[in-house]
């Protein structure tokens, strides 16, 4: 039971054909999500997150490849999947001119939940989402955070085994985001729900058991957050220079520097050996008269790992780009 696969994709590919161009939104993506796992699909806007989730749900036809949820094929057994899966689309998309209660009832009926079950489940879910006092309010008049919670409650009304959430906290304030993720955490702990979530937020990514980094339609890496952070070569140094642009240029040319990232007014420098390079960096800055605060060695966070991995992926693609152009 523990190792059972809830979601799987094999060489999943989606090409959108318009008269002007072919756009490969998802490119030979393969992944597996085990039951009870929380899988986070992380990537910048336009990376193919939404398309992937739609392909898994059978909301889009597959150009190539196969995918399944709970053993049901996304295309051939679409309805079996839709009966067992909860989904929150990216935009808030519950009918705005229906009340909280009417929305709950509508989704319960459309999922074929019996009246007896509804009487039990709906109050439970409303309490869980903290919406008990707002049952008569129109969905369109809820705050952003409450809308998301209502969407979650609606997507859970038929007791699904898997939920797919497409950027569920987009445009929601940090407090509500935290609340939303606490709800998800409870669901996973209490009901063993499998959660597949797309998000551009790195702090949310850290809450997942497994993470997939998607860039340009390709799954760059899929692993636990810890492993992904370890995949980045070198150690990380951080400091704030007085002359930002000049300091950056120096760092780019310095020996032993693997990668330079900017973080606000700070510079993040990946080096091969922190102890050996730290004095060299200080010396280089001083020789140019650039003052700086103390150079500290810090832990690689998801954000740095993410940028680093995406950069190396972009370099790989750049290198192969002329070949692709010649082929087409």
């Amino acid at each position, binding site marked *: 039971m523990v190792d059972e696969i809830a979601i799987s994709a094999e060489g999943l590919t989606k090409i*959108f054909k318009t008269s002007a161009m072919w756009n490969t939104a998802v490119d030979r993506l393969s992944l597996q999500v085990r039951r009870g796992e929380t899988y986070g699909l992380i990537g910048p806007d336009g990376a193919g997150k939404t398309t992937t989730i*739609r392909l898994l*749900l*059978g*909301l*889009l*036809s597959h150009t190539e490849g196969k995918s399944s949820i709970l053993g049901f094929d996304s295309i051939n057994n*679409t*309805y079996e999947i*839709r*009966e067992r*899966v909860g*989904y*929150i*689309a*990216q*935009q*808030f*998309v*519950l*009918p*705005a*001119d*229906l009340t909280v209660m*009417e929305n709950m*009832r*509508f*989704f319960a*009926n*459309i*999922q*074929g939940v019996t009246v007896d079950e509804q009487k039990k489940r709906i109050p439970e879910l409303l309490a869980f989402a903290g919406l008990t006092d707002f049952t008569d309010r129109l969905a369109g008049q809820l705050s952003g955070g409450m809308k998301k919670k209502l969407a979650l409650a609606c997507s859970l009304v038929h007791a699904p085994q898997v939920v797919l959430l497409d950027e569920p906290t987009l445009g929601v304030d940090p407090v509500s985001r935290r609340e939303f993720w606490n709800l998800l955490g409870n669901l996973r702990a209490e009901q063993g729900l499998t959660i597949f979530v797309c998000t551009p937020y790195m702090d949310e990514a850290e809450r997942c058991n497994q993470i997939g980094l998607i860039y340009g339609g390709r799954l760059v890496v899929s692993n636990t957050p810890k492993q992904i952070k370890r995949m980045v070569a070198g150690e990380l140094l951080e400091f704030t220079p007085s002359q930002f642009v000049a300091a950056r240029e120096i760092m780019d040319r310095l020996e032993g520097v693997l990668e330079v990232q900017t973080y606000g007014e700070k510079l993040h420098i990946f080096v091969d050996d922190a102890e050996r390079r730290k004095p060299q960096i200080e010396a280089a800055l001083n020789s140019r008269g650039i003052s700086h605060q103390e150079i500290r060695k810090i832990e690689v966070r998801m954000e740095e790992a993410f940028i680093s991995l995406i950069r190396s992926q972009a370099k790989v693609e750049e290198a192969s780009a002329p070949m692709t152009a010649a082929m087409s």
Partner: protein
Amino acid sequence: MQKTRQRLVALFLKESMQLLRDRRTLMMVFGLPAIELFLFGYAVALTVYHIPTAIVDQARTPQSRDFSLALVNSQYFDVKETLQSEDQVIAAIDAGDVKAGIVIPRDFSTRLENENANVLILLDGSDSFSTQSGYSAASIIAQNYSTQLTVEKIERAGIAAGPLFEDTSMPITTSIRVLYNPDLRDLWFILPAIIGMILQSMAVTLAALAIVREREVGTLEQILATPTRPFELILGKMIPLVVLCIVIIGITLGLGIFWFGVPFRGSLWLYMGLTLLFIISSLGLGLVISTIAKNQRQTIQITQMLMVFSMLLTGLVYPRNAMPAVSQFIGDLIPLTYFIRISRGIVTKGVGLGFFWGDALVLLIYGLIVIIIASFSFRNRLD
């Protein structure tokens, strides 16, 4: 089966509730038909009465005075000026003082005896509705007048009027207006068509918007991600609209009959049955449009274009048989074309299915085709 019913009821309730809460759409749905009807009933008259007229009576006989009196009494012509010659009449029309001129020649009375009296009617061609009204009114009056005279003459000659009546050569114009609408009441002619026009534009727009709006907002994606089948979704959306359209036809027909006094001559049940067929065809056309239009603005543009075509090409105002083949063909693609003939047949003429079964059949086939096209292009996926 059980779940299908549950889903259909849920979708129907959702759509109905949303429709009832959408005040602006509701006001449009109920207000617009009434406004359009009042516009056509009062503001837009296709027939022009009281055309300012100049008259030249060169005959100056009792018959010629009778004839000009008949013209005036018809209320179509108001004599503004009495002139002496044709040239003066033309000058008056050119100056814009009058829009019509009637010249009764010197030999009117003597030629009337020989059944070939001529009256010259001059009309200001720049005002097409005045021209049309003036022309048809004058020719009907002239015809009535000569008919009367002919009958009198025959009676004086001592011949029984009845059996020989058909043999006497008289210029009888047989147009639908004269046969079924002897007072030339525009609304009798226009109401059955306007009802169809209102119904079609409402049904097409509402059906197309119902889908496009949800797709644009994103609700459609959320509902598609449930086990809902496409046909359930479409039925759930269309049934409330059918009910709405039936309410609209009730309002327009009721206003037409009880407010404007348009007689309803045929079978109400037959009318309702065929109207339902027309509503379904129009809703289906709206669904087809929803598969083409990408957003609400495009939907409105397409439906407005359809409305312009419907106004011009379906026989609503302008007769179709005078149109070039291309225009007739485009008109053939619009369900209103068939419904107008059915509606006029039942409401104005009071004839039965036998007279327009062809139109009814086309409407049925039309409905089937658009629904098949719509359901083929409307899948359980987003692409």
